[in-house]
Structures are given as structure tokens and as C-alpha cells.
């Protein structure tokens, strides 16, 4: 699993950082997504998928 984030699309709602704070953070400047762990361990896969689904702007995607 590899996470892709499009900060041009991101609206900084924070759903990803709320759902998996170990994997996602937000920029101090404009609140857009910062991926801390682009290749997360299997133990976090389910939570990451949930975060991607919750993202309101469609900024997150997963490459298998």
C-alpha cells in the first residue's frame, strides 16, 4: 500500500489527521495534508482506507 496525497485538492478538513494521526498530519501554514508514513504498516491499513474514504475533497488515494 502506498498513499498518494494531492495538496492542490486538499481543503484541510483534517479528517485524515483525526482518523490516523500516526500516518497523517496537517501543514502548520495552510492545514493541507502531510503524509508522515507514505507506506504504512499492514496494521494501519484498515484505518488508512477509512481515512481515504472520509476525505471530503478526494485528495487522498491508495496505490496497491
Amino acid at each position, binding site marked *: 500500500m502506498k498513499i498518494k496525497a494531492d495538496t492542490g485538492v486538499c481543503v484541510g*478538513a*483534517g479528517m485524515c489527521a483525526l482518523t490516523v494521526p500516526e500516518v497523517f498530519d*496537517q501543514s502548520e501554514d495552510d*492545514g*493541507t495534508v502531510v503524509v508522515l508514513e507514505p507506506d504504512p504498516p499492514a496494521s494501519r491499513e484498515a484505518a488508512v482506507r477509512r481515512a481515504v474514504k*472520509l476525505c*471530503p475533497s478526494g485528495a487522498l488515494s491508495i496505490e496497491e
Partner: protein
Amino acid sequence: MTEATPGLMTYTTARERPFDPPDALTRAREETPIHRMIYADGHEGWLITGYALARAVLAHPGFSTRPEFLHPPIQQRLINLQEIRMQPGFFLRMDPPEHTRFRRLLTGQFTVRRMKQLEPRIAQITQDRLDAMEREGGPVDLVQAFALPIPSLVICELLGVPYEDRDRFHRDSAVMLSLHSTPEQIRTAIDDLLDYLRALVKHKHAEPSDDLLGGLVAGGELNDEELAGVGLLLLVAGHETTANMLALGTFALLTNPKQLAAVRDDPDVVEGAVEELLRYLTIIHIGPMRTALEDIDLDGHLIKAKEVVTIAAAVANRDPERFGESETLDVSRSAHGHLTFGHGVHQCLGQQLARAEMRIAYPALLRRFPELRLAVPAEEVPMRSDMSIYGVHRLPVTW
């Protein structure tokens, strides 16, 4: 591809029971997730009652939120839309890329981490209100004693608006959100609040301050009229919404003692309970609404350019296809993904602040007053079905 489903719906704001959406809208969802709907000005648009379609509309870039394209689902809504539309900086009613410019200036201030840093202050404000309630003794109106002051104080400190001026912005907000206000009343209330914010912005030019509005003034990216519009949106959205969730949520818990006990006694339940209360109560009383900018195929339905779509968020949030036993309040369910904060690029900017306030305030109230109860029969609690944000006008409680 079909162009219409049989029968024309009308929107309704009349609720048969305090915590449930209008029965007519629920019945509509049980039939089909999308309906043709006649608007108050005769426009033939659409009504969405299903969760999946609601989410699809809100995420679709072909739908606009600009007020000049909208038609009113009910007569009173038209007035509100027309009056707000001309204000620069009111970015809730802008599309990208204009919307993006404003949102980007603000999102850094509302991140999950920034809101976590505010938690000790929110907790202190909450304890101060509880102390005041205890000193005063019951019965009190929970709206005035607790639900309204907490988010008002928090948003005032965050924005840099003097809390002493609350009577003015509480009064103006109430007029703006009332479905009974006349166009003149709404215009007067908006003008008064804008005048207040213009003066505040001017003051912050002269005396720089270390708060959100002060930072925007110093940043120099927005002109003063835009700053006033941003201030209007954040100030009104920042206190009315959470205030109503706190009061209505407490009312709902008081009538569901098992759920109340879980929120009071189990810290692990609180996070999920806040999401479930947001879903179950959906204080967004009308809409959200969007207008198709082009012909859009929505799951086999052709939404033609210029047609308006009204999403009944309260019934979409009760869609059993997404939430199972959706008609019951169950604080142990996973209600994540509810539409109460919206979806798409306009999803609530302040949602992480609202979550922090609710996660702190509900359990603090219930632990301070374990014997908290209604001071009037439940049927006598005046409900806000006459406001664009649902809730209670008053909640008399004692302990």
C-alpha cells in the same frame, strides 16, 4: 437514463418529534433516494434523501454553491440567500478557485493539532460555566447558562472578538437564522454585524493582535470588506452550531438514560458519542443545496444544468443502507462519515473545533451534575423548527 421520478415533492421543516426529521422526508427516502421537487418559486429541481447520492452531489465539482444560481426550497430561505450573496469574503457561497483562496488562508488555524492545543482553555471555560451554574442553583436554562456561552467564548478568543459584545452578535445571528425574519430585518441584522466587524478590523489595523482576525489583518492578503465577510461567517458559524448541538444533544441524552450513562461514565465512549449525536440530531435543518453547472448524470438521473438539488441531510444521515439501525441513538455505533459537517470542498472548516468543544462539554456537564434532569415535561421544550439551525430555544434543567 430517466429525467424524472413520478410525483413532485415539496420540502418541509415541520417535525413531528423533537429528535427526528420530518416524517414526509423520511417516507420519501424509504421510497427512493432521489425525487423531483417543486421549489417555492415554482422551479422544478431535485430532492436527495439517500446517503450515497447526497455524498456524490457534495463531492461533485459540477455542482455550485453560489447563491445567484439557487432557488428556495421553502419561501423563507430565498430572503436569506439574497441578502448574504453580495458580501465579499463570505466564502461559504463561493466556488473554487475563489473559495480556495479564502479557505487556504484559514485552514492552518483549524487543524486537528491546533484544536488539541485549545483543549485546556475549552476545559477551563467549561468548568467556569459549571461553577456558575452550581452557584446559581437549578433550575436554569441550559442554553443561556452553558450551551451558548462556551462556544461563544471560544470563538471570541480565537477570532479576537470581545466577548462583552456578545449581546449584539447573538441578537443579529438569531435574526439572520430565523425563518420568520422579514427581508428588512435580515438586511438590518447583517448590516449591523458587518458594521461591527468593519470597526473591529479597523481597530486591529491600529492595534495589532495575536488572534485569527488580527493575523489576517496583518497578513494583508484580504481587503477590509473581505475581512468583515470572513469574520461574519466564522463568528456566526462558530457559535450557533455548537451551541445548538450542546443543548439538543443534552436533551437527547436526558431522554435516553442508558446512552447518557455511557457518555458520563466511560471516557472511551465520548469520541464516538459525539459523532453519533452529530449524525442522529443533524442540526442542519434545510439543505445543503447545490446547483448543477452542467448536465450531470447522477446514478442514472439526468440533472440538467441550472437545476437545483436540495439534500435533506437529516434523513440522509438516517439512511439504513449506511448506518443500519439508523433510527435509534446508539453512542457505541460508528457514525463517522455522517453529513452533518457536509462533504466536499465546503466541509465545515471549524469541525475539529466543534468536536473538541463537544468532547469536553458533554461529559463535564454530566459528571458535575449526575442528577441532571429536565425541569419541564419534554413536550414543553420549545424546538427550533423555525430556524435554519435546528435545536432548542430553551432547555430548563435542574439537578
